[in-house]
């Protein structure tokens, strides 16, 4: 019991994922700066951002909204992210414990942050936040099926097992799933899905700074916004880690394995960063069409290929 609480709060839960995610977010910003011929922030910039919001800035509550829900939504978002992170990282780091969750659980937990942002945004009573919330919800509706098809493809690939540790074991015994045609197709689809999950360009319309001024987060400030930042850092780490577990045979925590693990995560984040720096924001309708038609089509093709054994 106590050890599970430790897993949740310290390692590999809240503290670890937050720190790793903060560094990854620095990496993302640094790469973005280099792409744009800028110098970029120092390594600890994400921590400065977080602690400034938490300790220094005042928190402004909406006058005509529902302050309690407005404040609790970020907490629930952090919970969802950390819980999903624990269930992803425990098998990935090869920690055997009775406290586990399967792919469906992870899939549903990963929806909690987005859902909380929407509820929080609506609780603020701001019309721009409502626009953002509506876009976020439509985005969820469009990528949810696609993301599930990716997971279903993986489940098919390893013979109807749907817990993460057996998926990693199947890959480590054989070859990583990304080494096959279907694996490559599914990986491409999955990258776009997590791009949308993280609301990165080209799918950042819920936040769209230039038109609806951060949309769903427009009313957030101070400690509440610090929690949202925290949830975003955590998501920025666990989603690439999830892809590493699903496609790139996970981690081996020994010797050079650690270096490889770090490199795999960096590789996935690099792809995401490059996509976000070389694309414009699409309209919500284009995003729905992109996922509902093209990405689903690719995923279904991949699943058919898997059914034929490739």
């Amino acid at each position, binding site marked *: 019991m106590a050890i599970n609480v430790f897993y949740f709060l310290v390692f590999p839960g809240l503290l670890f994922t937050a720190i790793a995610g903060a560094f990854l977010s620095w990496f993302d910003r640094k790469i973005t700066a280099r792409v744009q011929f800028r110098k970029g922030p120092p390594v600890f910039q994400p921590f400065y951002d977080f602690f400034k919001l938490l300790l220094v800035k005042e928190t402004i509550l909406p006058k005509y909204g529902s302050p309690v829900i407005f*404040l609790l939504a970020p*907490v629930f978002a952090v919970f969802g992210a950390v819980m999903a992170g624990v269930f992803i990282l425990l098998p990935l780091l090869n920690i055997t414990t009775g406290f586990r969750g399967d792919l469906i659980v992870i899939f549903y937990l990963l929806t909690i942050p987005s859902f909380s942002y929407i509820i929080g945004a609506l609780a603020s009573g701001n019309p721009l936040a409502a626009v953002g919330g509506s876009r976020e919800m439509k985005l969820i509706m469009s990528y949810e099926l696609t993301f599930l098809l990716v997971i279903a493809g993986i489940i098919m690939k390893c013979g109807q097992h*749907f817990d993460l540790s057996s998926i990693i074991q199947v890959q480590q015994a054989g070859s990583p799933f990304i080494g096959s045609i279907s694996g490559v197709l599914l990986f491409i689809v999955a990258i776009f899905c997590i791009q949308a999950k993280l609301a990165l360009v080209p799918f950042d319309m819920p936040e769209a700074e230039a038109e609806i001024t951060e949309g769903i987060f427009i009313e957030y400030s101070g400690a509440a916004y610090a929690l949202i930042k925290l949830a975003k850092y955590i998501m920025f780490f666990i989603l690439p880690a999830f892809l590493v577990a699903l496609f790139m045979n996970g981690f081996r925590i020994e010797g050079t394995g650690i270096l490889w693990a770090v490199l795999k995560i960096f590789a996935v984040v690099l792809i995401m960063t490059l996509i976000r720096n070389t694309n414009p924001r699409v309209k919500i309708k284009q995003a729905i069409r992109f996922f509902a038609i093209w990405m689903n089509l690719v995923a279904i093709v991949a699943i058919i290929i898997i059914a034929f054994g490739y």
Partner: protein
Amino acid sequence: MKEIITIISLPVFAGLLLFFLPEKFRTFKGILAIMVVAVSGYLTIVIYSSANHFCSLNELSSGQSGLNTGFGLIHDMGRYITFNCDNLSKLIVVSVSIFSFLILLYSLVYSKDGRVRNYYTYFLITLGCSYGAILSDNLLLFITFWGILGITLYKLIQSYDEESSATAKKTLILIGASDSIMIIGIAILWKITGSLSMGGISVHTSNILSVVAFLALLTGSFTKAGAFPMHTWVPDYAQYAPASSTAYLPASLDKLLGIYFLARITTGMFILNEWLTLLLLSLGVISIITAVLMALVQHNYKRLLGFHAVSQVGYMILGFGLGSMIGVAAGLFHMINNALYKSGLFLSAGSVEYRTKKQDIDDLGGLSKVMPLTFLATLIFAMSISGIPPFNGFASKWMIYQGIIDFGKGTMIANKLWVVWLGLAVLGSALTLASFVKLIGGIFLGRQRKEFEGLREVPFLMWLPMILLAACCIFLGVFATDYIVPKLFMPVSGAFQFQGLWNSSFVSLLVLISIILGILLYLAFSLKRFRTEDSFIGGEKIHDQTGYSTTEFYKTLGEFRMFSWFFRKAGEGSFDIYDQTKKYVLRLSHQLSEAHNGVLPAYIIWVFAGLIIMLLIMI
């Protein structure tokens, strides 16, 4: 087992008694009704804790000579009155009691204005007949109780204008038609097996006759539970009937009964072949997706909930369609969960309507401050129905999904298509979340309207049932894997191992820890620095019209050709089996009326033509 006779006859006779009391003593009638429900609820718990058994009237009435001679008037009556008390019926009977009690408690205040005449009479008769339908083993006895339920359903909707009477008529016709189809099914079953006992029949669906019998009985179950394509009365009923009636029948009791009968026919009375499994699973996912798409674009919140009452049935059908132990347990679990949150949602809808007198999401907003308890309950129901962990809706959906994944190991066509079932079920759950974001956002969150500033929370007797139902939602979710499923559902379906990994109670503890830590964080770091301000919308002034209505959220979907086609057709009633049948029947009767032209020679020709045909047949 005297209890069985008592719980069936006590509510029915009490209901008939209340019928003769004048409407003036409505509160007194309500209190009397709640006492009856409490007594029969207690007796169902006695039945639940007793052993499984099978009994006929002769055993039941032994020792009571008066009863015996009364029944003895009809020859051989004891053969038809048989009851079966197994794990399944015991579980459903207790659930029926719980829902009836809570909803009746709510109705005491809600139906004070007497919108439905003789509300308590029909409420009690419904209760007695539901017990009867669930406990009876003989199919004829079953269909008798089942048929009375259709009439009380009709009487529990008030007819105040043309649309509501049309809805009442539609409900009665659809339910009545499905009942008559069921009688055909029972007749065929009797022809095949020569038995009318539900427990004693096990038919292979290998020939056309047995398939027809199965489909006929399935029609009855689907109409009662409100599944595609027989669902169309549910949204209309939800829109026009009082919220307590909807919470009582279409949301909880009809679901329990319909799914109970589905469980009986799919797991006991028939052995499904490959194609029927495929049919069941397809109808399940079609129910999920079409109904939830319709819910997305509704403006009337009661109608929106009505469509969800259809959509959720799809998950239960999926569970039973799988046919595995986990599928059956998941279907039953989802049935109980759905009855919990769906009747709760209708009760909250009723509360909102009770205070604001408005039915449209567009006219509402920002009620969370003035009706905090209703809001809290609704939020819990909404999160449960959308499958947010760790609430109960997630637990049962999770079981259904693992049932589907496990089902994918098989070799039949339906097994090969497991990705389709899984994908559409998960998509349905995402769309459910979307439409509940709209409901919660539109009614409770957002900018508070000036006209609602003086509102108060609903009376104690109205919020108590909602809070209790919400507590049940949390309880069933939190203890799902360790306690609820093994103790309540495994006795019915048979014991199985979970394929997936989900530790519901510990994760719930972590939710609690997180929320406490979050509150502490706010208190520790920024208690002094809270300031309230009006919203910032890019420097513009906020006027009364400024805003982005949540009902506009999913308008983008209508811009896609496929969806706009679907919504247009649905608006015209093309998917409504009632409207379509009505169209053809009216056209046929119109053609027949052409013959009535009032010309005497034409009638004489008809008469002679008829005579000649009869003669030809006789020769």
